[in-house]
């Protein structure tokens, strides 16, 4: 939860995700020629592995040193059959040293270990060591949203096959179009960009508590006027003018990650957690939430914007110290599980609802990342 954020940080945050994404995209270009495998085979594999996942009970991951955050995210990745379908097709690095440093490969090993053994939990030590090579340190409290981006970018960068990279992109990236319109001369500039998460504010622009997830989405896509010292330079007008900044949704991926920015700065430096009640639905239809001019997509695309909650990464405690756990709805059994490091138990929707938050309880679990899954994959 150490993430700096707040309203004004939104664009900065986007850039971070973008720059990572662009780098990855560049790599895709480089690796294109390696894509030799026929597509049909891939698809067959996907289906086989997809079903094979989770033939056992859900397996826990031992905490190997403040790794609850990593553990929760790993569970979210590995319980996602769409992701493991990609993961299982990676090229195994030839050398032992490379193997140790290859994040996707280590993840795959971990997955295998979780699935084959009859142990109740396995230890992600090897993966944790591998990650520490990339400055993802152990014994450090991570912010789940940040770690998710880092992890995802690492995976993407180290996947050699462009085909897989593309699939991974398709699976996770959200496409939006940013509009910037001068209020004086009505000249408009557009920019397409992609994001890995929708970083939703939980307070509106006047710091009032937003009531539901839908409200947060509305608020996120609500046009913002840039006036006073936020004014931008308009080339047509030749001076700084007030602008209207808005964002339109272009494309939503199969796995949609929503980041609830449950923190705020009270007195400049001091960040504290917002634990108020914020319900989120099990079924989310973006067409019902966003208005016509908040979208920039054809009917086909929009028809697919019906989502089902797949996982919740919840945080308990304060910004300085806390604990993460993950609630994941198994895609094969359609049952909810709660993953608390090595402890896994089957739960119900009522337990998940407990992560809505509570304004009087500051130490309880509150949802931090919401992962929604498209109901009817295209």
């Amino acid at each position, binding site marked *: 939860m150490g993430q700096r954020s707040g309203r004004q940080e939104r664009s900065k945050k986007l850039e971070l995700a973008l720059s990572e994404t662009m780098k990855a995209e560049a790599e895709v270009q480089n690796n294109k020629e390696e894509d030799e495998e026929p597509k049909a085979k891939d698809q067959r594999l996907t289906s086989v592995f997809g079903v094979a996942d989770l033939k056992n*009970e859900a397996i*826990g991951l*031992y*905490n190997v*040193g*403040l790794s609850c955050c990593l553990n929760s995210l790993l569970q979210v990745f590995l319980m996602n059959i769409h992701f493991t379908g990609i993961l299982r097709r990676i090229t195994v690095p030839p050398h032992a040293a490379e193997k140790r440093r290859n994040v996707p490969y280590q993840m795959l090993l971990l997955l295998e270990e979780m699935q084959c053994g*009859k*142990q*109740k939990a396995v*230890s992600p030590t090897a993966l944790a060591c591998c990650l520490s090579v990339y400055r993802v340190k152990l*014994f450090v409290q991570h912010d789940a949203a940040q770690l998710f981006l880092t992890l995802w970018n690492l995976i993407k960068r180290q996947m050699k096959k462009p085909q897989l990279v593309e699939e991974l992109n398709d699976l996770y990236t959200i496409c939006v179009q940013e509009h910037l319109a001068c209020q004086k001369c009505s000249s408009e500039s557009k920019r397409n960009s992609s994001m890995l998460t929708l970083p939703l504010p939980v307070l509106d622009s006047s710091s009032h508590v937003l009531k539901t997830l839908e409200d947060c989405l509305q608020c996120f896509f609500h046009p913002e006027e840039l006036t006073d010292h936020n004014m931008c330079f308009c080339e047509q007008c030749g001076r700084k003018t007030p602008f209207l900044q808005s964002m339109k949704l272009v494309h939503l991926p199969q796995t949609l990650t929503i980041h609830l920015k449950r923190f705020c700065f009270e007195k400049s430096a001091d960040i504290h957690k917002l634990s108020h009640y914020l319900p989120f639905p099990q079924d989310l239809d973006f067409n019902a939430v966003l208005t016509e001019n908040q979208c920039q997509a054809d009917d086909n695309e929009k028809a697919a914007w019906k989502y089902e909650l797949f996982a919740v990464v919840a945080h*308990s*405690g304060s910004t300085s*110290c*806390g*604990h993460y*756990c993950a609630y994941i709805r198994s895609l094969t059994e359609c049952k909810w599980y*709660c993953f*608390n*490091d*090595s*402890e896994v*138990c089957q*739960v119900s929707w*009522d*337990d998940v*609802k*407990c992560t809505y938050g509570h304004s*009087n*309880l*500051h*130490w*309880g*679990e509150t949802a931090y990342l919401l992962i929604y899954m498209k109901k009817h994959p295209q």
Partner: protein
Amino acid sequence: MAQWQEVQSLANAYLEQVHQLYAGAALPMAVRQCLAAWIEDQNWRQAVEPLSSHARMLFHSLLALLGERLGSPGLGDEDFMLKHNLRKARRDLQAEFEECPEKFANLVANLLQEERRILRLGQAGEQGGAALAPGTPPESDREQQIRRRLAEFHVALQEAERAFRHLEDLQDAFDFCFKVHYLPGEDRTSDPQYAQQVQALQAKLQILDRQRREVLAQMQQLLGRSETLRDFLQQELGAWRERQQRACLGAPTDTRLRPLETWFTELGQGLFQLLQLLRALGDLRQKVTYERDPLKAETPLLERRLRELLSYLLQSAFVVEQQPSMPNAYKRPLVLRTATKFSARARLLVRLHDRNHRMEAKIHIDRDPPKIKGFRKFNILTSSSKTLLAGDSPQDGLVCDFQYLTLKEQKDSRSGKGSKGTGEGPLVVTEELHLITFTLAYAYCGLELELETSTLPFVIISNNNQLSSAWASILWFNMLSSDPKEQQFFSAPPPAPWPRLAEVLSWQFESVAERGLSREHLLMLAEKLFGSKPPLENTLAWPKFSKDGASGFSFWAWLDGILGLLQEHLKQLWKDGLILGFVSRKQEKKLLKGKRTGTFLIRFSESILGGVTCTWVEHPTSGPPAFRAVVPYTAAELASLALPDIIRDYQLLVEENIPENPLQFLYPDIARDEAFGPYYSQRQEGNLMEQKKYLNRRLIRVSSRQANESCKTEEELVAATENLEALQLQPGGLGTQQPGGLALLQPRTSGTLQPRDRGTLHVTSGNLGMLQPSSPGTVQGMAASPGMLQPGGSGTLQPGPQGLEPPRPQQVGSGVSEMLQPGIGDLEPQLVLQLVPEGQGPLQVGPGGMGPLQVLHGGLGILQHAAPEDQGTQQVGPGGLGMVQLVAGDTGMLQQVGVGDAGLLQPVLGPVQLLLLPEGQGTLQPELRDLEPLPGSPDMQELLQSLTEGLKPGSGTLETLEVAELMPDMLEVMNGGLEGLGPRLAGGTALLDPHDPFLPQPEDTALPTVSSLFTAAGDFPPLHIDANDFQ
């Protein structure tokens, strides 16, 4: 229940799965069965860990136990086969797992896990099946879930404790090794043995660390699940609160706390156990810690989370079990009267406390008083603190029971205005909401908290006549507010949606007379309130409910009047559905039109408070059907004669006709006696002859002519008669049985403003051997001897008070007809007295005051006309002053004054003393209405004027009378009337002792005061009124 036992009780399909599970397993089922409890109690999962000696220890323990069993005589010879199997199993196990006990531990752990899975499936299946089985008590999903989760929570807690013990063992082992083998001072890096030992030590530390993390993860998981459980309990508690609020409104709901108490206690107990476990973890850290010790970082976090959870649980577990109420408030809690005892009780649903620690509970009233000007402040008398008692048996729970509390208003209560300030605050007392807060200093297991809970808001009144409107406030609040701390609710009371209001109104009837309102009733009420608009979308504003009303009283006052009437007199009839009750005139005609002559229905009067009437249909030979209705009976009449008896004996007097009972069939078509037979009071028909020496009594009526008319045609008179009621009383046994004969006379004539009463005269003739007006006092003495008529005493003189043209109603009752004391006549230019001896046939009633009086008399009676025209001038008090004043020329003045319970009257100027008989105690005393002044505002005068005009032409018709009934302000019934009386008259001449503590504040009476059934006897002191004051 132990797992293995539960497994065995599974349904066959699931048992089959268990058999399959063991068929291929290396652990024979015989062993599982034989050592079931021990096997379940071990932590096999932990034993699986590599490098752990735990598995080996477990394995050998198992073998040893098996050996013990084999040798024990318990098995004896009776199960030779079993013994053989066990022996074989022991040998096999030893052979197979001796070298790798971890494998065995893994095997057992997996078997147990699989068992649990089958068990879950089986139990879920059973629950599904059980839900279909008939006869199972309906239990909500949530209740089931709570029970299931509580059970799961306990199992998980036990597992955590087991894991903790294992951790302790590991730590002890490590600690020992560490102390023995680790020798830091010396440089022994070259010693390979030492290096090996350090390595082993390092491995042990790794295992210890993992175990610590595992225990922590378990606790995190436990806390997560208990949060869900807490949410469930919270929801249940919320539902209970709602039920309690509804129950306060009279809804029939279940407000038991026992299940909640059990659940809260169980969860609380579990969480406290967890807290202790956490502390024990802290102790472990004290003994052994190392770099990046997970306990160091996570225990404080867990403890804070747990403490927060516990505090929240305890805080919400402190509830007001019994809302403040007066002991005899009869289903109307939350209305408290100063200086009257009341009680309230709070309960802590978490039944855990330290017996050595005294917990003190306190109560406070209005701890954070709302900032409303003039908001009264009160003190709670008697002790406001109490040591929390845990009942002798644990069943009783932790209860703070405050009884015998009383409230006293603080001297300087209304800021700046003195105790009897003019009350300029925006809220009247019945809209002032007060709160009592309970606090409890709770301490248990090192957790110290100040718990706090508040009652629902209540209204504090100082007098019973405020009870009805206070209750209206309570209804409104609890119907519309879910925030019990909203003391300023009535600063801007929201309107009530009709469906909600309808439900609440129905509860009122249900709680008073065990039968709610039907759809038709509610439709009629909705129509009355909203006209023909669809009622579902309508809302009713608070003032419209409780304050204004076209008929001079509010909607609520009207309903409460009816409730009072039902409670006192009509409970059984209402309960059995004989009273149609709420029927509009239009509807009533529609219903009766198609019925045969003599079909009648009983409905509540819409024009007077607490009145019930019968309407019947007549089909004349030609012309449209006629509908007749009796002037409504109020509690006063019904007190003397029950409604079924009235219906049985009802007679309609028609000129030159034999009186007949027009009430033949109860709507829709039930013969009268069939419908009401069970409710008739016992008649002593046989006594009729014996009673011959007495006269029968009969109530008749008198119609008085309009003042400016010198004569009236016969037809008019007849018409007037027809529309009025004729009542015949059968001789009801002995004289003592009829206290009501006279009492009946008084209450209904309420002055000129109620022309429907005009001319109604009840005269009792005959055998009232004993007059027993219900109030003691002078009256009784006067009426005691038969043969004496003391019209001044036992009869009532009720000259109309106000200056209206219509004739004033006059009522005279006389106890006995043989003798009349002279002298009344000259007082009463207006008075019409008619005595009807038995058997004299219908009586024709003389016209009003100015005209000559017709008096019929029979053999026994003496007729007296008390109102010679020229005997005196009549002075009518000005409307504004509103006093009753009759000046009878030089004969002096007649003062009529209503009296409270004591029945004391002191007219000063008049030569004649009039005594009004108070009705039975605690019932209506409507005679006081006569004393009410007219508001004197121009529009009121206009209204009166128009009314008067309206009355002139057709004073005999029902319709006109109804118009008259709508006169505002005239129909207000004073309960114990004095309170209402004072302030109203105060405008002109104050008369009431201002120091009387029972007098209400002026603003109290700004609301229509309404009679209530909840009046206790003896609440009001006698009132002394000086006639001078009325001028």
